[in-house]
């Protein structure tokens, strides 16, 4: 039976130094990185025979639809559940996402991404949660574009790969810009589009994007983030001129 070496960058808590441990795992059919981590957890002994603690990671759906188990796998940000061992070579390196504070081992704190969604008001303002009949019609062609953006899992791949997104930069990230684009095209979202544009025109907003285009490269849902950013670039320019004329 084939074996692989799993090298994990570990860290006991947010304040301690990271360290590396290596584990040997017997590969079973269709095994993914989560499957390998679960095998390690059942008998947490390193390749040198040292007993250790079970590795810690964030997970939920294991179907690449929740975004929880995002980590760096051989240097690339992606969901561990969808990373099949057979496609990764004999030595697999697992690291926590580098743009977020580590909680423990491969588990990181992505609060910053969710705060960005608050800043850009990524929701529909409606009249309440009771029976008010159907919403407006929605053209299926536009709906398809919106749907592509509404599949964003807030997983962190796009911002991990982005050179502008880091602890020293206030950039809110491509995922948040994608949501602005989405809500500004929804039939009941459009009415608040100026507020959302205003939210991405200040510090850390759309002008911080360096157009590296790494975000679309790594997005697991192939969301056309750079199209959204280009379109929002134009919309914010128009908005800036309007603001200049009316204020």
């Amino acid at each position, binding site marked *: 039976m084939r074996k692989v070496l799993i090298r994990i960058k570990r860290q006991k808590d947010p304040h301690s130094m990271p360290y590396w441990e290596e584990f040997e795992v017997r590969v079973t059919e269709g095994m993914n990185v989560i499957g390998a981590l679960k095998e390690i957890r059942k008998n947490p002994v390193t390749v040198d025979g040292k007993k250790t603690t079970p590795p810690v990671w964030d997970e*939920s759906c294991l179907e690449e639809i*929740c975004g929880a188990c995002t980590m760096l796998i051989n240097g690339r940000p992606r969901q561990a559940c969808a990373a099949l061992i057979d496609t990764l070579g004999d030595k697999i390196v697992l690291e926590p996402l580098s743009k977020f504070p580590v909680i423990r081992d491969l588990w990181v704190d992505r609060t910053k991404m969710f705060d960005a969604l608050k800043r850009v008001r990524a929701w*529909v303002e409606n*009249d309440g*949660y009771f029976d008010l009949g159907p*919403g407006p*019609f929605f053209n*299926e062609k536009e709906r398809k574009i919106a749907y592509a953006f509404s599949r964003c899992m*807030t997983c962190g791949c796009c911002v991990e790969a982005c050179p502008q997104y880091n602890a020293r930069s206030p950039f809110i990230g491509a995922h948040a810009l994608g949501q602005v684009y989405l809500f500004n095209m929804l039939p009941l979202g459009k009415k608040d589009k100026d507020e959302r544009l205003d939210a991405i025109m200040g510090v850390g907003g759309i002008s911080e994007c360096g157009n590296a285009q790494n975000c679309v490269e790594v997005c697991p849902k192939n969301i056309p983030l750079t199209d959204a950013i280009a379109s929002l670039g134009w919309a914010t320019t128009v908005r800036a001129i309007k603001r200049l004329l009316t204020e």
Partner: protein
Amino acid sequence: MSERGVIVVGGGISGLMAALKVVEKGIPVKIFSVVRVKRSHTVCAEGGINAALNTKGEGDSIDEHIRDTIVGGDFLAHQKPIVKLCNAAPSIIYMYDRMGVTFSRTPEGRIDLRLFGGVKKRRTAFAGATTGQQLMYALDEQIRKYEALGLVTKHEFWSFQSVVRDGSGRGIGIIAMDMKTMELRAFPAAAVIICTGGYGHIYGRCTASTHCNGSAASSLYQQGATFANPEFVQFHPTTIPNIDKMRLISEAVRGEGGRIWTYRNGKPWYFLEEWYPSYGNLVPRDIAARAIYKVVREMGLGIDGKDAVYLDVTHIDRKRLDERLGGVLEKYERFMGEDPREVPMKVFPAAHYSMGGLWVDENHMTTIEGVFAAGECDYLYHGANRLGANSLLSASFSGFEAGSRVVEYIKGKDQNTDKKWFDDELKRQNEQFKLLAAASGDENVYALHHELNDVMCDKVGIVRKNDELSSAITKILELKERFKKCGTSDGSRWGNQELIFKKDLYNMLELAHAIAAAALLRNESRGAHYKPEFPERDDANWAKITKVRFAPDAPKFEYEDVEMSYMPPTKRDYR
């Protein structure tokens, strides 16, 4: 401890819907979840959500939705709640529509509908093949709006441990553990709503997200809440098997024309179409799962001799497939490395949905006053078998109901914040965790969980025999003993997932015992509960809800007649 407000445990769509109904009245809500609420298990629902919108010229009606749901559940669900559920369905869809859910549309821009299992009319609204994700995100966004206003506080990565009860037995708050700092803390509340989903991970090899283990519901059960119909676990006919999980291939695939077959005498055999000419590939899930099990395990006709039959969409136009089933086909391709548009998918049944759950009254209150339950963790709507696309509906509607009832319940009531009750329960939980952390021995908690999964899948699964159920109970009792020897490989006081899982496994073992014991007692076949020794539904003796109460040695059972005010039982025939 003077804060007023409501606590919601669980952040899937039932939890968030309940929270919205409370917070829109200006009452503050705290939401507790073991994951980011946006990553709750609701995102795994694919196919859609049912409502008799009747926009396809097929003469669909709410009455037909009610009848399909009652018959689909094999007459084990009280009928009045189903009538309310189906009547509310169109307004639930419209509410989501007004939150901005990107439902797939008709050429005119209306919400499109597709066909699903156990029905004859197109009744399922959908957003591609990721409907659950889209509904989840809409509620997550609405909740974020209230979070920004300071009315909702999220406690994400907090694990619910127990409710706090006062001297009269009323629920007045909860104890939860911070999964980072491992601190146990008490939170007072005017009412508690439990929306913690199903218990698939007692079976392990299931379609559920990894935290759907029934631990919270089991904890309440051990505190005295009555649990109902635990033996009713749905096996979804079409999943992709793997060691880490069984991945769902939506019923929508068959709704869009997918066909199930295997080879017999060297030729394709469409056994569902042959056995059930009227409903064909869209028979309800219990029937489809049993048919596949029979063909594979009893007739030995699995593909390549393995646990698999084909689910075939290769005859359907590629563009249409991508538009209507994109998400699910991408998933198959990603995990299996084959393009299902070119090669038929290999699938097999796996544990999927818990019809059973915490017993609740018509107001969604459990047998503990002040503690409500909604979503998959209640038992109210699906009887012995749930129809496809009724779960997103019941999760939404029950959350809506529970939230609304809680607002009425807390009106004019004094909130009990007497420190004594909180201190007592906190002490009890601290002691339990101290014991768990101090335990030593050769057993590994994850390996033991795997053994529990094996016995549940093998002996309390699609086909049940009384001698096997008895041996399953013996095995569960053995696992409970061995649990005491579960050592600790992680002594850390920070982010210790092993310790929390240990507590979860303890709770799973208690609930597993109730499932197996309830299955042993029910000597009939009804919906997902099938015993070849008793192959027929027995309405004279078993048109009854199982109600189980916890006792330290063995669960205690009583039964409640099913209320059938809408329609009397009929023969359930999909041929």
